[in-house]
């Protein structure tokens, strides 16, 4: 179990050895390792292949900006493609596979693309694959699709749970490096509610990767001290493994906490990840900075990495990326890396500094004014070629190269609300506009303040400032003494004059030449260059690549970098699992279920249920011997027509309308009149939208002068109530009227059929006379049943039979249906579901959702005369527009097949017999169709042009989708009792 590149020291637990595998080969590492550090410790430099050319690649960074070392982590249904090895915490038994290669990482046949790169330059695919036209979908595209992509999804359901939560705080601190730790300390001591969120699995940020002292303490000891203090403060919440990925409006942030990703699998009851929505009164961004490379030919070999990452591997993880390394820098920070590695006993082949006046070192060779111009080593770096200041060229043997091109502040979150960073010449990088957002301040390296001293100081200062906004007084803590090294950088972005390919975007294989080609072809704006070359579009979002490309573009345009522009960042800061956004809302829990009061009873009866919005309603009630749903539905329909049936209609919206002006108010919202409706009567009402189209229908029952009960359709219960409140509060605020939704408060059942009155008489208390004479058609009243239970009774009918709807307080709903079924036994009562309800209403010709689909006028529904012209109601004016009043508009009709055995399908279109079936001849469509056991054939409702004048006409209906073409006879839309006699007996 050799870890041949392991050094002394580091923040790994050598007592806790872990075994893991990569591409099937076993290795060992230690607790505290990442997959990348453990692989490096085992001298594995080749970790992946690039997207386009399948170039061999090794780890490039030590953080979430990693473009190269992407693996498929875990196996089976838990496989996670594109996982960055640099942030994957090592656990015992970890399995990882390389991706985007075939058959193996070392030998990948797709690397042929690399040989063909001259023909695969930026945007080449826009210029070819056009001939022959039919080949795109069949040949070219399938090949391209297979070759593209990175890792594989398992294709299986994600077995893990995700959660969501809300957090609130005075101050959210994003990033727990020196600046963030001091910020949390400052705010915590002031008593503010603080959240400190850190994407890493441990606190400290860049301090973990460096060796400087804080006063006389090692950084680790100082971190432990501060974290110890913070963890004892009840007002501070410390969150590791938590990435704040997005800033949204009004101080709301999205964050994802990786709760159990560092374990082989989540322990039971534990989610894999939690999506937090953090509501912060003030926020401090202390997210540090990301190093950027210098670009030169073949700068992409395994072993080439950012110098700061190399330093982190050596100091934090005690790993040398190779026995001998070289450093290439344009600033002082590269020297720090060389010093630290040298101190760890790693041989420094040379430090190549592009600056002629580079500082010298007694410890290692410094080649000032020199540049690395090429490298060797196909599967791993073997040497680099250096052009010295005098122009001579020299080879340096090394197994790794650290590149230090300067640091870019992590400004990402400041851009999420469309803020644009500004250029800072001193550090040659974009920084956030200071004090541009009162809700979000920036400190430390994220603000371009790179020394530890500045980080500490600004973290405290900005916190005090932010808390002052909230009237919380905070004080500067005793800050430790820390290095305050100035930034010395001479911008140097890429080595000019190379003949080979020099990589900018390592993952998407965008080279300097690609940028130049894009520019040559007229793609000169930054956004064009990005889109044409795919620069910055890979999983790392170009965190290490974008600025280098801007610099090249600036050269090509003869402008400065800020004049060329910048590209702003969008959420998420790093990619976030889709599962985390969904949380528990998946499978059966996607949306809540609403259950009717009779649900339990219906379940006991073996009812089949159907989704109606969020409701579950009984669709039909099969009984023994029935093998097909039609048998059940036909039986239920016939039973209603013959005797009595009962159906739970609780789902219909119910709105109580009370107040002296209740009638006046309803006169406004319904197109027909309600002012003169007597107490004790119910009226059918049609509501229009203000644009004159039918919105909803239902009934309004007048229980008292100042009290109406309005019903709506199930689907529109919520929107009608909202609309009525709009009318009440916004249009007629002076009316004395109040509304309340009582949909859930009352259980309501339709009791329908010739024997319905006799049935009800068995439960209605005797003091209430519900005889035909006393309680006439459309009567309503507040009554009592079953010896004193208050109830509401409405004599209304959807089925066309003598029928009632009876409502009791919801908690009695279950008891009521059981009682009705008991006392109804002598009438052979049946419960009926939504299917039978639908058949009954089609037989009667009542419009429902398929007809009231928001595209129908009252006239189309045959209700044009209901629209009162004598009063101002919503929709009346615009219903009078010429197109909506036209004579040849659609009208609701009934359809019966000419040949009784034919089945009419809803959604079929109406044509004249003999006309070709095309759009020009289209005369209407079938809205609702059913088999009518009463008629003994298929029947339907339809909208037909000029339909009211065409009863008796034979037309055909066609459904090319079903190869259906049958003849039908147009009828009135009432298949039963058009005179309404049955309602009134």
């Amino acid at each position, binding site marked *: 179990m050799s870890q041949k590149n392991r050094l002394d020291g580091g923040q790994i637990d050598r007592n806790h050895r872990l075994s893991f595998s990569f591409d099937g080969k076993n290795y060992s590492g230690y607790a505290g390792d990442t997959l990348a550090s453990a692989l490096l410790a085992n001298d594995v430099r080749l970790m992946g292949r690039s997207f386009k050319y399948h170039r061999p690649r090794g780890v490039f960074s030590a953080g979430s900006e990693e473009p190269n070392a992407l693996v498929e982590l875990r196996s089976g249904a838990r496989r996670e493609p594109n996982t960055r090895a640099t942030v994957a915490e090592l656990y015992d038994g970890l399995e990882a596979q390389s991706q985007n290669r075939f058959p193996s990482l070392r030998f990948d046949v797709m690397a042929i693309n690399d040989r063909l790169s001259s023909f695969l330059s930026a945007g080449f695919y826009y210029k070819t694959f056009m001939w022959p036209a039919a080949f795109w979908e069949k040949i070219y595209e399938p090949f391209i699709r297979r070759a593209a992509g990175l890792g594989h999804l398992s294709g299986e359901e994600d077995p893990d749970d995700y959660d969501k939560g809300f957090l609130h705080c005075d101050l959210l601190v994003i990033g727990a490096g020196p600046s963030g730790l001091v910020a949390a300390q400052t705010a915590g001591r002031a008593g503010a509610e603080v959240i400190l969120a850190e994407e890493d699995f441990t606190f400290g940020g860049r301090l973990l990767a460096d060796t400087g002292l804080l006063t006389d303490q090692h950084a680790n000891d100082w971190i432990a001290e501060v974290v110890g203090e913070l963890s004892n403060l009840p007002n501070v919440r410390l969150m590791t493994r938590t990435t704040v990925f997005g800033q949204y409006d009004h101080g709301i942030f999205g964050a994802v906490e990786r709760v159990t990703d560092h374990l082989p699998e989540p322990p039971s009851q534990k989610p894999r990840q939690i999506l937090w929505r953090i509501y912060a009164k003030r926020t401090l961004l202390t997210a540090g900075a990301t190093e950027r490379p210098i670009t030169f030919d073949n700068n992409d070999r395994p072993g080439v990495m950012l110098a700061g990452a190399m330093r982190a591997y050596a100091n934090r993880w005690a790993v040398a990326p190779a026995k001998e390394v070289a450093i290439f820098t344009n600033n002082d920070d590269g020297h720090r890396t060389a010093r630290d590695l040298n101190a760890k006993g790693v041989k420094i082949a040379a430090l190549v500094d592009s600056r002629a006046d580079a500082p010298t070192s007694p410890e290692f060779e410094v080649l000032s004014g020199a540049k690395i111009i090429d490298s060797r080593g196909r599967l791993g770096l073997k040497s680099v070629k250096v052009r010295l200041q005098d122009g001579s060229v020299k080879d340096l043997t090394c197994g790794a190269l650290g590149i230090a091109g300067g640091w870019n502040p992590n400004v990402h979150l400041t851009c999420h609300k469309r803020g644009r960073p500004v250029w800072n010449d001193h550090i040659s990088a974009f920084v956030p506009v200071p004090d541009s957002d009162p809700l979000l301040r920036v400190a430390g390296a994220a603000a371009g303040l790179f020394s530890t001293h500045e980080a500490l100081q600004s973290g405290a200062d900005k916190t005090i400032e932010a808390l002052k906004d909230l009237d919380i007084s905070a004080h500067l803590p005793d800050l430790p003494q820390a290095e305050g090294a100035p930034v010395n950088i001479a911008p140097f972005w890429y080595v000019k004059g190379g003949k080979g390919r020099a990589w900018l975007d390592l993952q998407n294989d965008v080279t300097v030449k690609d940028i130049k080609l894009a520019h040559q072809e007229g793609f000169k704006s930054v956004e064009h260059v990005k889109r044409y070359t795919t620069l910055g579009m890979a999983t790392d979002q170009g965190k290490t690549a974008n600025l280098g490309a801007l610099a090249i573009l600036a050269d090509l345009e003869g402008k400065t970098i800020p004049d060329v522009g910048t590209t702003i960042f969008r959420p998420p800061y790093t990619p976030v699992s889709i599962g985390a956004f969904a949380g528990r809302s998946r499978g059966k829990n996607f949306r809540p279920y609403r259950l009717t009061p009779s649900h339990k009873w219906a379940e006991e009866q073996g009812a089949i249920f159907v989704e109606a919005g969020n409701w579950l309603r009984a669709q039909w009630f099969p009984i023994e011997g029935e093998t097909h749903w039609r048998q059940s539905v036909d039986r239920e329909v016939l039973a209603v027509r013959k005797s009595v049936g009962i159906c739970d209609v609780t789902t219909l919206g119910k709105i109580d309308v009370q107040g002296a002006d209740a009638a006046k108010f309803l006169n406004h919202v319904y197109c027909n009149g309600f002012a003169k409706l007597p107490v004790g009567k119910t009226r059918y009402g049609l509501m229009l939208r*203000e644009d004159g189209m039918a919105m909803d229908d239902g009934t309004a029952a007048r229980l008292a002068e100042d009290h109406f009960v309005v019903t709506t359709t199930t689907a529109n219960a*919520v929107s009608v109530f*909202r609309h009525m409140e709009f009318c009440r509060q*916004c249009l007629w605020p*002076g009316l004395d009227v109040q509304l309340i939704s009582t949909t859930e408060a009352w259980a309501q059942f339709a009791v329908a059929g010739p024997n319905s009155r006799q049935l009800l008489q068995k439960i209605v208390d005797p003091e209430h006379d519900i005889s035909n004479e006393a309680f006439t058609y459309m009567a309503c009243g507040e009554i009592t049943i079953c010896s004193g239970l208050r109830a509401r009774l409405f004599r209304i009918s959807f089925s066309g039979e003598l029928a009632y709807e009876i409502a009791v307080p919801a908690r009695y709903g279950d008891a009521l249906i059981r009682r009705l079924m008991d006392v109804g036994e002598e009438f052979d009562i049946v419960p009926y579901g939504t299917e039978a309800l639908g058949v009954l209403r089609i037989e009667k010709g009542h419009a429902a959702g398929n007809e009231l689909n928001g595209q129908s006028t009252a006239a189309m529904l045959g209700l044009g005369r209901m629209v009162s012209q004598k009063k101002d109601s919503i929709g009346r*004016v*615009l219903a009078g527009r010429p197109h909506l009043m036209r004579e040849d508009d659609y009208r609701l009709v009934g359809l019966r097949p000419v040949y009784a055995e034919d089945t009419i399908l809803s959604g079929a279109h109406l044509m004249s017999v003999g006309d070709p079936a095309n759009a020009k001849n289209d005369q209407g469509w079938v809205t609702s169709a059913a088999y009518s056991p009463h008629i003994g054939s298929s029947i339907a409702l339809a909208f037909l042009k000029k339909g009211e004048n065409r009863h008796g006409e034979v037309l055909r209906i066609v459904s090319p989708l079903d190869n259906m073409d049958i003849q039908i006879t147009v009828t009135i839309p009432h298949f039963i009792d058009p005179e309404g006699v049955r309602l009134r007996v």
Partner: protein
Amino acid sequence: MIINHPLLGPRDAQEFVYLGDASLIDRPDAMAETALNDFHDYLYLRDNPAGSHQELWFHEQGDRSWLVVTRDTASHEITHVELAVDYAKRRGRDR
């Protein structure tokens, strides 16, 4: 977004349902000769500024108040919130 409800304090915008321009309160006289044109302009031709916008939000998962919210459509910053019923009365709406 967070809407500072005049009665209930700051509430998440998710509790609300958006309708649109507060000019929907200014419903024209339905009996006027010009009603058809007036209603057309009222319903279909709303201001659509890139900037300060008075708009109607309904506190559906709350107290069922309609609110008039003044919000910048470019920055989403909210500068004023009031009950629509007060706003409507001020605009002369009554019975």
